[in-house]
């Protein structure tokens, strides 16, 4: 699947917590940080679509 670069400004606290969460889960950040973010965004879209129904 094609990848694109996402640039966003997020709360430092959220960013740090997320980094910690990914690191705890995989023991690394490289290649998996984007994977987890994609998962989060997909989940959020699904949840929003569900709540609209």
């Amino acid at each position, binding site marked *: 699947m094609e990848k694109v*670069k*996402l*640039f966003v*400004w997020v*709360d430092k606290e959220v960013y740090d*917590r997320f980094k910690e969460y990914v690191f705890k889960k995989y023991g690394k950040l490289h290649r998996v940080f984007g994977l987890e973010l994609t998962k989060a965004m997909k989940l*959020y879209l699904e949840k929003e679509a569900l709540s609209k129904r």
Partner: protein
Amino acid sequence: MGKVRMCVWIDEDIYYSFKEWVMKKHKKVQGVMGEEVGRAILLLMNLESQENSEEALLKATKPRKKYIELLKWLYNIGKLSPIITNKAIERWIREHLGVMSKSTIHSYMSFAKTFLWEERRTKGGLIEYSILLDKIEKYAKIHNIELEEPARTTVKEPEPSKVTIRGFEVSLETTSKKTPNQSALAEIVMDLYQSGYSASEIVNKLEALGLNISANRVLNIIRRELRNEFV
């Protein structure tokens, strides 16, 4: 709160669908994309941590009686309509628990927020929450709280006070009694009405919640509640 610039490679499909959705929601992308990404991150972490939430909930001490009342009310209202506003919760705390102090209301709200998921905020300070029924059930199970009201034994209601005028018996009791569901519905309708929604918009909102209520009924509820405020 400080912000940091996040630069990540993500799937193209998700990126464009997310961007499109943000555009649809806010009519812009700049300035809000990061906010929405932040929410997505929190949702993921929240859901993942729910797997271990039972442990965390077990650690929490058993809540006070009034907190349990609030929890039961949230659960019952959540079954009726999954969305609730902060104002509705605060009003219930004031009216039913008799709490007037802002700091105490705040502590009740903090407790309630454990079982709520913030959906959206409006300009008037109104926050819409969805009620996490599963979480309430789990918490109740851990602390042996009965969420459902026990079946009540039927007690014969006392006769309303009556007077006889010119040979006719006239009842003095004029106010109708509401069932809990009716009052919950009335609270939701009044909240939406006070937030500036029109009757037809309220009908649409309720329909989205799975409640099919006619515009006339909505108007009747609003009239009745407004009348009751002045009685």
